[in-house]
């Protein structure tokens, strides 16, 4: 089973400022920011991806091993889930 992950499309406004993310969740007027690696993951999620795709994006862009990248991705996704910012679809391979 693979799951496609995507940022929630409604009520979420964001932009990149150089290498940082600035975002607003309009539903509760909360403000979010992230550093350059967070911005990379965010942008990848905006287009739709998988967990594996996110790990690959990090390892290709930054000097980090897959295990560390995997842990970072899982933590990032957990944060987004808690904030209700992810749309997740599970499909059979």
């Amino acid at each position: 089973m693979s799951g496609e992950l995507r940022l929630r499309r409604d009520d979420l406004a964001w932009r990149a400022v150089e290498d940082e993310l600035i975002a607003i969740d309009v539903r509760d007027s909360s403000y979010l920011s992230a550093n350059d690696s967070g911005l990379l993951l965010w942008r990848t999620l905006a287009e739709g991806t998988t967990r594996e795709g996110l790990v690959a994006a990090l390892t290709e862009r930054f000097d980090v091993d897959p295990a560390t990248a995997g842990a970072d991705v899982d933590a990032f996704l957990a944060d987004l889930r808690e904030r209700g910012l992810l749309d997740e679809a599970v499909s059979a391979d």
Partner: protein
Amino acid sequence: MSRDADLWAGVDRLVARSPRSADLRYHGLDSIAAAATPRPARPDMTTRAARRTAAATSLIAPLVLQRVLAAVDQRVLLMKGPEVAAHYPDPLGRRYRDLDLLVPDAAAAWESLVDAGFEPTGDPALYVGIHHLRPLLAPGLPLMVEIHHEPKWLDGRTPPTGELLETAVPSATGIPGLWTLERTRHAVAVAVHAWAHTPLGHLGRLLDVAALAQGLERSLLQQVARSWGVERLWTTTQHAIDSLFHDARRPLAGRVWARHLWSARERTVLERHLQNWLAPFAAAPAPDAARATGTWLLTQLTPAPGETRADQLRRATVAARDAFKRVSEHDAGVDRSQP
């Protein structure tokens, strides 16, 4: 949208000349400084913070404007702020703290917004009899809305509000249903607005005029200014812009009472006094200017309401002592000395 590359190269040179982040903030250039080329080498948090703030504001503004358009059943014209930012090469270089909206019936629009959940903010007494009503805030979106019944204008003069409303064009922000001032008129109106606040006071305001005027025929700008009775003010503003951003010869104002602009620093106490004396002559015919200067001089030579002659002399002595200090340093010193 045509962009004047020379203008923005001139801005970068001016930003690089400023030694203090506080001066850049004073001139409203802190956000643009973060992206200037060459980038200022000094380490500081100010310009990055300004840029982040500008980014957050740029996200909030469309949300607020959409709520305004949903609530107000009139033509809504956006002035300054994000409308000017749309003419910058990078809109985040132009920070703003509120949305200035011109409408045909300001009182009705204000009531509609309150009915829609916008909350009034600020001391009501400050907004009696001025060009806009008490500011409003949409819940959860920290960006004030100021509903204008007219643009800020010169004291004793009538702004061309009807003409501005009649000649409105779609906003450059791309927000559906939002209007703005026709660009030639917007450029001149921003110049008048800036002068009404402080004649040749801040680089950021002059840059706004220059950004709006990019690619426009100078003769048309002059024609609008003439029709509004502000041609002299416009010419002074245009000469300052040409010198500051295009390395043209420095005008007389820039050699006497507006020197701070060319150094990209805050004005001194002496320069503020010289501005009060001489700026009217750069904006109006000599008899009108002499009258304005005479009125100001009278306020300086007589005690203010509630002030004794001794207090007035003390005030004048402190100002003379602080002649070459930045105004903010002088004012802070005055505040500290108050009982």
